[in-house]
């Protein structure tokens, strides 16, 4: 037994014991423990295996920077890979397992790779596995993949909820240590709305880990902050991303710490989007490891972490400890260890002397201080058993038997968010660390994050930053209170020791623990030419693990700078990127799951379609009835029946989804003339006209029917999918190119419900429903509109047709849509009225050769290609016209719209079939493709529309569609099958 729990002290709640399991064994801890502290209390320091060599690894840190202690939490649908034990709050019933060990943590077969570790240096895989070539896919890569990954993904969908909020703050404070709390207090007292977030369960930061603390101040401050209505305290909340214009994203873990006791219906995690006027970054500092042989043995731990375990969690990670430190901070750990009853065998300090107050205290307590010495190696298998200490600059190493080595290589301010905000770092030569330099957003750093490591300085900076932030947010005129008194010890300057000399040849010295990158890997990379820090990172994978190099990056770049003879600032850092710590995907999706992923839009008639058993098609966000199967019909049978009904008696379609735009103003007609390929100026009032719109590159963009309601007033319809796009497009031209034109546009898509009934009996129905309306050819000709009353409802009635049949589109305000539909159904009953869906509509329009934008067109098709010259004005200019004259657009052999009749009438070509003249040719030349293809119950055969190179010149010829397994012959015809079939049009 080495690690142990102190009988008193710490912030754990000894009255609430908790049980948990790790690697199949049952343990106990207390409320207030992290999984890591509870494991240490149970002397279960071996917690994982490293990524590449499967080396035994122990808990190394106490916070977000932990590289080793990754856990598979829970089982089943709620299992979670790669959780950092140092950030997992213990709850009753927690189960955890190591992530990268098989068959067990103790006996991991993967460790065999360690035997051949001489081969597995940086970049080895690029240099091998190339012969024989066929082996890569079949043998090597599968083997590599088997070794991949850490934890395992759940197999089932996640049962938990996630949520998001968007809030605005005058001052956002990231980090709730003394600096952050001081900043929050100062800003809040000035009257600013303050949000303060800390990733830990409790606010207090390093104050929670120290023995001599400002306990009273912390309690009073938290109490004051909690009582202020303008302050939000967010524990368990990580500020993970800092984006443009002070937009920050936070992840709040709401119920993770409750485990199975989490209340149902409450989101597990919540993502905060915060726009802050001012930001204070008080994110503290991370301690750096020291690089020497065997520095990854379980039992080697960051000094600050050792202190945290002792003071905050009341667990001591070892009984016989050595401290290895390059700065005075390590002595604090030595004192903490001694106070906790551990034996401190020595403080190894490579500095020639230790002049500060803390070393003096250690000395006074009889702790041996080895100045000018270093630990050159640590040994032990699954647990540290001794360290070798040697004098710097040579001399024999002596072994010290110990079970804990606390190391401190200095501190790196947590500048992640600062860097994400595009701030520029500065290398501080005295403190040996990067500190915030040039600031680019409304932001300031304070405390250890700013390189001010002493508590007094951190507090003072925090108060000042908070007050200034409030002032800049518009809450000036308030003087920040004086920081509390602190008696910081005098400290001697730290030493920079990036790699312990004399450790070479004694074993692997790790820099990046999780990715198993050693100092010699880094040097090898530099030798091979990977001299940029970015190359180094990618070649060796240093800093790319789940901890993103929080403990390793500065050591790695310092070793590189040494190897390349450049200074550290000239070597530079890699890029800090969001997120600061990993963010659950579930939280990123929030509640936009299932049907909420994208709005489902429905028409006012939708409930009827549902009741009638319609099968729906997604058209953009709309649900449109695709077909209405009856009595076990399949789609084909239903569509045949529907399409037949329209031609023989009566069909009805919900066309409410069409885009509708009210166009008004003295220049409306002129405006439409510029937009549409055909003219609208001469359109009579009450008349309708079909129009095509092109982009200025001449390609078809949208189509629809526009009706003149008055001299200066038009009603435009667009495709369902194009509605929003077209309105935006029109506004763009009006506002930016033709601002002098007097035209107002108003979207009325949903103002109107549209019921379209078509077929030989359509007129009868209209006559019945609108007795006052003259429905004869003369009074109500094709392509005209009447206002009237239909089924007692005020309506606009359009006589237009997308099917080739006599057809009326009746528009009523959408709150009357269902009433109208029901009335039409009732009136049509005697004619066998048949509701039809989009599929039958497509068949009918294709029989007539009408195009669908997006089906016959794909952004590369002009009106001329479609054979729609009749709609392309020769007289006026319009958007896109100039482009028709470009060399490629005016080629004679462009793809042109044609009809196809398969030689075998029973054949229905697949849409998307490619067309060729000669299927034996090699390479085969494709000359077109099938855009639409259906079985027509009216023609009694399959037929298709297609785009074919120079197609208009080839009417009557046979073209081939080579399909998988067969080639289909088809005759090219004009794209209008009703006329070709000689059938009468009911116009």
């Amino acid at each position: 037994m080495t690690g142990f729990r102190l009988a008193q002290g710490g912030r754990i709640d000894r009255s609430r014991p908790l049980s948990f399991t790790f690697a199949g064994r049952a343990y106990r801890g207390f409320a207030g423990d992290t999984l890591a502290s509870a494991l240490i209390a149970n002397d279960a320091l071996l917690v994982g295996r490293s990524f590449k060599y499967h080396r035994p690894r122990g808990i190394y840190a106490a916070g977000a920077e932990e590289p080793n202690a990754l856990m598979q939490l829970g089982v089943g649908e709620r299992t979670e890979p790669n959780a950092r034990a140092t950030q997992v709050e213990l709850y009753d019933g927690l189960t955890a397992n190591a992530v990268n060990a098989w068959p067990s943590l103790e006996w991991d077969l993967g460790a065999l790779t360690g035997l051949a570790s001489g081969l597995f240096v940086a970049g080895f895989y690029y240099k091998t596995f190339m012969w024989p070539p066929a082996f890569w896919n079949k043998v090597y890569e599968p083997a590599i993949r088997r070794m991949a990954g850490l934890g395992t993904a759940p197999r089932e969908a996640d049962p938990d909820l996630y949520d998001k909020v968007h809030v605005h703050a005058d001052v956002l404070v990231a980090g709730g240590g003394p600096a952050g709390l001081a900043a929050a207090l100062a800003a809040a007292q000035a009257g600013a709305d303050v949000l303060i977030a800390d990733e830990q369960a409790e606010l207090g930061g390093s104050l929670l880990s120290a023995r001599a603390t400002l306990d009273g101040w912390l309690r009073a401050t938290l109490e004051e902050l909690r009582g202020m209505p303008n302050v939000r305290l967010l524990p368990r909340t990580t500020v993970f991303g800092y984006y443009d214009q002070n937009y920050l994203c936070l992840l709040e873990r709401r119920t993770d710490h409750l485990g199975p006791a989490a209340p149902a219906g409450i989101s597990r995690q919540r993502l905060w989007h915060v726009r802050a006027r001012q930001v204070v970054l008080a994110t503290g500092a991370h301690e750096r490891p020291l690089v020497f042989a065997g520095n990854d043995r379980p039992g080697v731990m960051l000094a600050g972490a050792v202190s945290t375990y002792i003071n905050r969690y009341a667990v001591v990670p070892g009984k016989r400890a050595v401290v290895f430190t390059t700065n005075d901070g390590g002595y604090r750990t030595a004192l903490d260890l001694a106070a906790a009853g551990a034996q401190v065998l020595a403080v190894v300090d490579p500095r020639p002397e230790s002049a500060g107050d803390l070393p003096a205290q250690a000395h006074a307590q009889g702790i041996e201080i080895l100045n000018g010495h270093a630990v050159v190696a640590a040994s032990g298998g699954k647990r540290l058993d001794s360290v070798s200490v040697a004098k710097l600059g040579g001399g024999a190493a002596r072994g010290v038997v110990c079970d804990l080595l606390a190391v401190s290589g200095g501190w790196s301010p947590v500048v992640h968010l600062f860097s994400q905000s595009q701030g520029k770092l500065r290398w501080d030569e005295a403190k040996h660390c990067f500190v915030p330099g040039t600031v680019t957003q409304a932001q300031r750093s304070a405390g250890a994050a700013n390189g001010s490591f002493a508590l007094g300085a951190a507090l003072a900076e925090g108060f000042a930053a908070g007050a200034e932030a409030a002032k800049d947010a518009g809450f000036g005129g308030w003087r920040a209170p004086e920081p509390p008194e602190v008696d910081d010890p005098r400290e001697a300057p730290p030493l920079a020791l990036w790699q312990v000399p004399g450790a070479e040849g004694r074993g692997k010295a790790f820099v990046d623990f999780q990715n198993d990158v050693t100092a010699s890997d880094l040097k090898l990379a530099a030798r091979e030419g990977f001299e940029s820090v970015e190359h180094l990172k990618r070649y060796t994978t240093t800093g790319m693990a789940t901890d993103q190099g929080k403990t390793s990056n500065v050591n790695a770049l310092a070793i590189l700078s040494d190897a390349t003879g450049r200074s550290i600032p000239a070597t530079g850092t890699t890029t800090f990127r969001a997120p600061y710590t990993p963010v659950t995907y579930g939280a990123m999706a929030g509640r936009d799951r299932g049907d909420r992923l994208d709005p489902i839009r429905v028409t006012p008639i939708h409930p009827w379609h549902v009741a009638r058993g319609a099968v729906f098609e997604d058209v953009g966000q709309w649900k449109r009835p695709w077909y209405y199967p009856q009595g076990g019909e399949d789609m084909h049978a239903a569509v045949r029946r529907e399409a037949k009904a329209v031609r023989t008696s009566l069909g009805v379609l919900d066309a409410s989804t069409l885009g509708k735009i009210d166009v008004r103003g003295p220049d409306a007609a002129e405006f439409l003339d510029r937009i549409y390929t055909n003219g609208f100026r001469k359109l009579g009032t009450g008349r309708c006209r079909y129009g095509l719109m092109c982009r200025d590159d001449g390609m078809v963009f949208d189509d629809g029917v526009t009706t003149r309601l008055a001299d200066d007033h038009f009603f435009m319809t667009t495709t369902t999918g194009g509605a929003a796009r077209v309105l935006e497009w029109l506004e763009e031209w009006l506002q930016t190119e033709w601002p002098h034109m007097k035209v107002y546009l108003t979207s009325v898509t949903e103002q109107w419900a549209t019921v379209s009934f078509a077929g030989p009996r359509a007129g009868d129905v209209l006559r019945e429903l609108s007795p006052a309306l003259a429905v004869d050819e003369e009074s109500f000709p094709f392509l005209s509109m009447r206002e009237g009353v239909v089924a007692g409802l005020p309506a606009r009635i359009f006589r237009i047709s997308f099917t080739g049949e006599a057809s009326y589109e009746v528009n009523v305000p959408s709150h009357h849509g269902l009433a109208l539909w029901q009335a039409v159904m009732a009136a049509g009953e005697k004619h066998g009225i048949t509701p039809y869906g989009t599929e039958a509509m497509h068949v009918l329009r294709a029989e007539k050769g009408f195009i669908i934008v997006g089906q016959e067109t794909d952004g590369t098709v002009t009106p001329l290609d479609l054979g729609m010259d009749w709609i392309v004005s020769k007289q006026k200019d319009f958007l896109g016209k100039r482009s028709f004259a470009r060399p490629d657009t005016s080629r004679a052999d462009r793809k042109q719209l044609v009809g196809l009749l398969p030689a075998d009438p029973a054949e229905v070509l697949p849409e998307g079939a490619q067309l060729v003249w000669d299927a034996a040719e090699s390479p085969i030349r494709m000359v077109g493709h099938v855009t639409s293809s259906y079985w027509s119950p009216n023609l009694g055969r399959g037929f298709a529309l297609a785009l074919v190179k120079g197609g208009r010149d080839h009417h009557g010829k046979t073209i081939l569609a080579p399909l998988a397994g067969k080639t289909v012959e088809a005759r090219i015809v004009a794209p209008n099958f009703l006329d070709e079939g000689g059938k009468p049009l009911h116009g």
Partner: protein
Amino acid sequence: MQRFSIVSLARNALTGHKDWPRYWRSPKPKAEYDAVIVGGGGHGLATAYYLAKEHGVTNIAVLEKGWLGGGNTGRNTTIVRSNYLWDESAHLYEHSLKLFEGLSQELNYNVMLSQRGVLNLAHNLGDVREGIRRVNANRLNGVDAEWLGPAQVQEFCPIVSISPSMRYPVMGATLQRRAGVARHDAVAWGFARGADALGVDIIQNCEVTGFDIREGRVRGLRTNQGDIATGKVGIVAAGHNSVLCEMAGVRLPIQSHPLQALVSEPIKPVHPCVVMSNAVHVYVSQSDKGELVMGAGIDSFNSYAQRGSFPVIEHQMAAVLELFPIFSRLRMLRTWGGIVDVCPDASPIIGRLPVEGLYLNGGWGTGGFKATPGSGHVFAHTIAREAPHPLAAPFAFERFTSGALIDEHGAAAVAH
């Protein structure tokens, strides 16, 4: 060039890996080269490699303003496929895929081409139609392609949800089995090492700041490491092509946008292939190290910042989770962005510019990694012969004047 193999690896292990040579030299620029390639990304390095290897043009330099491979080559989602719609594209990308298939051996450097298959999902009838159209076109163009129904999709990628009640149900997918992913960095490093061995000077931290153009001809260029004389310049500077061409007085039909990508923490293999979905702008694969690699759609605005806005990827993740419900409890480890040069027709520009001696290979937008060897190969030919390689000819700059665009938007919306 030191040959890489398991044997050389073992031999070096014995000497503590002290004797590995540099991958590439670190030369100072010469005063004059026969040709200069601007941009040390995969495409630029491949161009130099093939110029030296196939055309014997070895007195050349690749100038890279940062570290080689640090542009989009170093930040893409590594999808390699050739199932493009139009003939011109299919031929070019297939040429590249064929070169990819032998690239590890050609370069004696393992680029880890993993032909695990790429699925392009269809979520509505329009997608289905376009998918089938593409499969048919691909087959006739000699590109392997299959159409899968939903059940086959799930068989190929068991973790994809094919529940018909999804907001965007999976109605089928195209599958190219020969498509997959490759190690992006290795492609750059392999070409750099190969080019260096053939005598090409690769000069990093060398930013081109201007051109010497007289009488409509390139005579040389200016860099932060001094002036260099040359009669031929190939601009292959994805993310900065507009900036460079502006220095030469040429305006391009290109806009530079951020494109973001992200990786998860590494997990044990769960995802066997590559899944893409145009409708929801999703593409996901799992790397050989275990991270899920995902890409987003471009951010709408022009930017040279190599970063984008968070909502873009949030949106993406919501869609990913519908397709892959088991990813919900996994975590995003890192996000980043690249600068993609987007052409109006989503196809690249390869060929001469209106200044004599000046060539451009750019505008690959969101999908040029897959083209790296092919692009370099045809561009080298174009520069060396002063005439377009037949596969490059349709991609000439002049197409914007003639109107002969190769519009891959329609069918390939997310062109990765």
